[in-house]
């Protein structure tokens, strides 16, 4: 793979990761007390958990199954979607049966997908709870983008000559770097694509292009000085 294609691949992967993190509904610490809509954990941690599950799936497909690149990337996306889909579903089970609250958004009056009324189901003194359909679907899309982004990073790094171990380690670091940029932009909680904070996405993408470009430039330069293979 030539250096320009590799840099472009990594930049596209970085953008996919940033878009994915913005789509994943995260309620942070307040969601753990059913005070905010979304999954009750941190943005970077959840996205990384999903992304790395996808990376394991993609790594298996890439090396063992010998399928075209498209299937490797799709498999990474599917692995991430499964991780986040099941996590959000079990989270909702606990909200509904363990806490006794319906999944509801506090950012919109009607769910954009199901058209269900939201505001009267938000318990007093909270900013929503659980994962309504719009947040769930947004999370699934986010996990897919994150999984494809993580897989594309790994495949690109391996194609330019890095060993399996090094490519996987750098892919994890690359994922975290982009996820942290997205988390700074989100600043705490986001419900999904219907959340007003989602409109901040372009500036995170701009930062991500810069960061991904610098990281990929350093990697390509290091490989060039090391004589082709690191």
């Amino acid at each position, binding site marked *: 793979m030539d250096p320009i294609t590799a840099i472009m691949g990594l930049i596209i992967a970085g953008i996919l990761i940033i878009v994915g993190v913005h789509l994943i509904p995260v309620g942070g610490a307040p969601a753990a007390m059913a005070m905010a809509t979304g999954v009750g954990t941190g943005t970077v941690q959840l996205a990384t958990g999903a992304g790395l599950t996808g990376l394991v799936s993609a790594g298996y497909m890439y090396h063992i199954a010998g399928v075209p690149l498209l299937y490797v990337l799709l498999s990474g996306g599917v692995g991430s979607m499964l991780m986040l889909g099941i996590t959000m579903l*079990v989270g909702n089970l606990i909200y509904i049966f363990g806490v006794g609250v319906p999944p509801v958004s506090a950012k919109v009056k009607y769910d954009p997908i199901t058209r269900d009324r939201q505001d009267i189901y938000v318990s007093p003194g909270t900013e929503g709870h659980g994962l309504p359909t719009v947040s769930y679907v947004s999370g699934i899309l986010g996990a897919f983008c994150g999984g494809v982004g993580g897989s594309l990073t790994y495949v690109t790094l391996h194609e330019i000559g890095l060993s399996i171990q090094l490519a996987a380690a750098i892919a994890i670091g690359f994922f975290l770097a982009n996820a942290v940029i997205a988390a700074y932009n989100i600043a705490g909680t986001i419900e999904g694509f219907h959340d007003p904070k989602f409109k901040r996405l372009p500036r995170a993408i701009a930062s991500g292009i810069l960061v991904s470009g610098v990281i990929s430039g350093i990697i390509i330069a290091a490989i060039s000085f090391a004589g082709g293979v690191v």
Partner: protein
Amino acid sequence: MLDVSTGLGIVALMGAAATIAGAAEDLESDIGSQSNPNSQVQLAPQVGVLHRIFNKAISGEPPAYAFYSSIAATVAWILMTANVNVITSFVVGSFVAALFHGAYATTAYLGRLASQRRYGQPIYLDVIHNHLLGIMGHGFVATFCILVLSYTLWALLKHPFPFVMLAFIWGITIGAIGSSTGDVHYGSEREFQNQPFGAGLNAAYSGKIVTRAEIGTRSSIDNAWFCAKFGGPATGICFGLIIFLDNWRTVVFDPRMAVIVGFAIVAILIAINRALEVFARKTYGPYPEKVAMLGGGE
């Protein structure tokens, strides 16, 4: 490549290990009060609620479990390369990780509570004595199962990533799952059992956690007893399902079909989630005070 029946057996073993690991991880985070619900334990003395709950937010759960799993896997790998039996290597590796876990838990508890002296929160040495083995023991079980899972994936299913890196990745994943699912039961329900069932925590009650137990003063072991009824097993099932379904589709189907099956499972998950949402809305109904304030009707 393995034949399907052998592959399915291996995937079932991985799913079982993941289920035990998930439940143990969540209960450990309840005994130690790690992760997001600990924000309320940390806040409690500042609003005048003194308590005997353990308090050890060493870090977020994903980096913490990535750390323990990596230590355990590294020690196990060193022993395995010295021709030590695999299971013995796992036991020793998990034990070393548990020692690190115990050291971090102790310093985190002492450090956090020492910083709350100005609010009159005492440091209870017996809380450390009573909880530490429970924390280390549950951490040991979770780490051991992650090693079993990672080794199975690496040695039997021939995953190309190194064993230690797989343990690191599953450590991050299990932490993310534990703090997303089981901890909600601890934070939303157990910490605030003095609030009515069927509502999120009103922001006005932040920090006012329950400090009385079923008998006597509440400890974090009481919290683990409560969460073992729902939050812990739910976390275990969650992680077990993820490991089982993700590997099942690649073992049973050819690679192209595995992707399509993955999309089909995701579609089913969305449908189940929607059915649950409709059930909850119909069963619980809207909040009367919100209907009075905002107007009812769909």
